[in-house]
């Protein structure tokens, strides 16, 4: 190591907190964590610290607060709209991957408590091994940390069963959070909230639902160091199936009818456009696909649910998947979270430009046609086919009221020209769909910036006051949400 090297201005102080081994300001080290999994340009911090305890996180924030130094938290590093900007070159990047322990699985209360830096893959596998299931992402983002997911994604992210279970937020029972001044709080009536309640977790009875404030906050209100979540009995049975539709209108009629049933008969379901359907099946044609997976605790329960799905889909023009299409169901037929781990191996070169958003169920068909036409025009105007780009439209019902829509483009990120092109396309798409009334699910980078642009002045003012009350020196992710 070069002793004459000029270090980041808080290098010695941060090294004193976490140990020299766990701090670096080497240029290559900063560069290697400057990008996420999107085409958005990198943002290098001034220093990276890897705290090993909540107390160390607290000390880092105290120091940052006193010196008014921006702090950006980082989990698995695979967000999709660029990292929070902060002040490039000055930010303290606080990476939470050392806080990766599973603290407790409470089988009686059916809860799990884990440190925020545990990967969702590890968390879901360990819970599964104990006979339980947890609603957190399994694929492809099982490399994300649970803290990162609950921070950087709308509603805390989407489990595999998002169609029926919704976002992850209802399953979050409480957090341990380090506030910008370094104080440590527990939300959700954990032991830090109420001396007499060591084991009871609920979000609303001892205090207002402050847990919710930290879900999908992008990291602006505090740094999560521990999370307690609800776990569920492990399902035993999974059945999958699919239908082909000649027209999008028929597919949507089936989907919206299925969404009206309570309880929802499916666990996982999605519709795919002809381009994606052909790519996945190796066939040609203009068919639309509806694919589903039903999880349950008995064959009888699953059978009844499938009967309901089949009855509606057939009535509304659906035909069962012909022989030879089984491969297309492989994403849906996994019951055990560990089997998802192999799914990445089906990926090939290239990258997805994620153009995904939430839209209302009411008027969805019209909304979808508008965005599909928009993407068609983008494809033509930018000659994306010549670059080998591929479309993949994805329609996921979300509970009873909304739909998650992806007008994704698969592209070869090796071409700098194409990367730049896709970056602009993603930006323009984000603005376009937001103006149509849709919401972005990524609470980081550019997506958060666009969403905040359309907040009402009153709401923006409320958020501004809230942020300044909690973080008067605005050290946590300054600039995110335009705050």
């Amino acid at each position, binding site marked *: *190591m*070069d002793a004459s090297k000029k270090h980041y201005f808080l290098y010695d102080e941060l090294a004193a907190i976490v140990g020299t*081994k*766990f701090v*670096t300001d*080497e*240029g*290559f*080290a900063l*560069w*290697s*964590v*400057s*990008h*996420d*999994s999107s085409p958005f340009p990198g943002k290098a911090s001034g220093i*990276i610290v*890897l705290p090993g305890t909540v107390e160390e996180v607290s000390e880092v924030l105290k120091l940052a607060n006193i010196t008014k130094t921006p702090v950006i938290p980082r989990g*698995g*590093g*695979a967000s999709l709209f660029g990292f929070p900007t902060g002040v490039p070159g000055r930010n303290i990047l606080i*990476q939470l*991957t*050392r806080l990766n322990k599973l603290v407790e699985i409470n089988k009686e209360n059916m809860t799990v408590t884990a440190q925020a830096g545990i*990967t969702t*893959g*590890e968390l879901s*596998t360990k819970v599964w091994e104990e006979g339980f299931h947890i609603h957190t992402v399994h694929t*492809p*983002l*099982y*490399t*994300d940390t649970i803290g990162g997911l609950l921070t950087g994604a709308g509603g805390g992210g989407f489990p595999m069963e998002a169609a029926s279970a919704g976002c992850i937020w209802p399953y979050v029972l409480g957090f341990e959070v380090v506030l910008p001044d370094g104080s440590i709080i527990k939300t959700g009536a954990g032991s830090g909230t109420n001396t007499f309640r060591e084991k009871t977790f609920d979000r609303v009875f001892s205090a207002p639902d402050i847990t919710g404030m930290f879900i999908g906050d992008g990291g602006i209100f505090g740094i999560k160091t521990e999370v307690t979540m609800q776990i569920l009995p492990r399902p035993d049975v999974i059945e999958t199936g699919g239908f082909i539709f000649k027209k999008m209108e028929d597919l949507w009629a089936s989907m919206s009818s299925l969404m009206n049933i309570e309880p929802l008969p499916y666990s996982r379901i999605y519709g795919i456009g002809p381009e994606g359907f052909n790519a996945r099946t190796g066939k040609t044609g203009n068919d639309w696909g509806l694919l589903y997976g039903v999880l349950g605790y008995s064959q009888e329960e699953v059978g009844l649910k499938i009967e309901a799905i089949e009855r509606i889909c057939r009535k509304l023009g659906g035909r069962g998947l012909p022989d030879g299409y089984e491969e297309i169901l492989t994403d849906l037929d996994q019951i055990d979270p*560990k089997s998802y*781990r*192999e799914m*990445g*191996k089906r*990926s*090939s*070169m*290239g*990258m997805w430009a994620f153009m995904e958003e939430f839209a209302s169920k009411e008027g969805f068909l019209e909304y979808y046609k508008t965005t599909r036409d928009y993407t068609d025009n983008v494809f033509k105007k930018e000659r994306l086919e010549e670059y080998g780009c591929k479309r993949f439209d994805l329609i996921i019902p979300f509970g009873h009221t909304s739909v998650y829509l992806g007008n994704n483009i698969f592209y*070869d*990120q*090796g071409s700098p020209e194409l990367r730049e092109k896709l970056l602009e396309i993603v930006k323009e798409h984000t603005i376009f769909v937001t103006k149509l009334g849709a919401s972005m699910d990524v609470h980081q980078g550019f997506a958060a910036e666009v969403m905040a642009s359309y907040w009402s002045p009153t709401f923006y003012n409320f958020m501004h006051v809230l942020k300044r009350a909690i973080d008067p020196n605005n050290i946590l992710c300054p600039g995110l949400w335009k705050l």
Partner: protein
Amino acid sequence: MLEKYRYNVYRCTRCGVCRAKYNETVHYVCPVLENTAGFDHYCGRGRIATAKGILEDRFTYSDALIDVVYCCLCCENCREQCGSVDLETGKPLIDTGRIVRAMREEIVKLGKCPKVMSEISRVVSEEKNTFGMSLEKKKDLARKYNLPSAGESLFFSGCYSVFRNPKEADDTIKILKNTGEEIAYLGDEEWCCGVMQYWDGNTGVMRDMVFHNMEVIEKSGAKKIITPCAGCYDTIKDIYPEIIEDDLPFEVVHLSEYLSDLLDDGKLKFEKELNKTVTYHDPCHLGRHAGVYEQPRKVIKAIPGVELVEMERNRNAAFCCGSGIGSVRATHPELALDITHSRVDEALATGAHVVTSACPMCVEQLELSGKKRKLDLEFINLPELVANALGI
């Protein structure tokens, strides 16, 4: 050089599978990441990012970066768990080991190769073996067993089994003779295969080894090479063709493959019962690099009285022994040993009495941990285990 991998470097999606894949057998992917502070630049994704930074002239090879580049084991667990494939060539798309090697080549070209690796490279260049000893020892081995220098079946001893653990060469020759294989041996004409120089970026020295060995092997009339060393096996089989830009005119066989074939043909029968619980460590260069997983297991299982128990991380998910084909052990001995300890801990957890492998370097590295911690474990390489079972 790194430019050769530009296409691949730009296709890493930074998803982090190389960092944090998790299931029953894989757990965390990178032994270096797990045994250092945990910064991204120690794992595949971060290494690819630093390669990209170099390609874009964002920084140069500083001492700190060189240190990071040389602590990669090139074990290819990240490549294996990533699994993305170049659809045009069918080869791995994100081959971190090879990208790191290309960075090392550039470092060597800049004259910044870590001293210990330059020294090893000089020794190999001058003495034609890794240990700086006289090749007379190889000549002596040929004399001891009266092995001709030419023949269709050629024993390739490698450096380790002659200079470091002569019993391995003895055992291998005895096994081959006992099973009726008429072998030749090049003696002092057999130079180091060059594996360490290939992976540490001293490709010039490696090329000298390759072209010499190719010449003498061809002269010997060999149609088949048999070696007990995983490093020699993978290097000759997979890397020599890359260097000579041609197919090999002979077959390369690892001892475990040779024995496995004999078992299949019913030509190998073990006489002696060993009564041991054995766990097998997959050498990176036999496993992930060359795809040989089952043959050593078949041989071990065929030994009477032996119960083979698997470590939690096995086959393509096996953790490296820590040696990093000798490079990491030389440049970062403490890190290497930490990794070794974690691998030996896995072996201990199986309840096995014996840890075996099909690579002399792995066995030596694993044994180092056992000795340091005074563990009640035997470390026996495959040739010795087989020789014992054959009673020879």
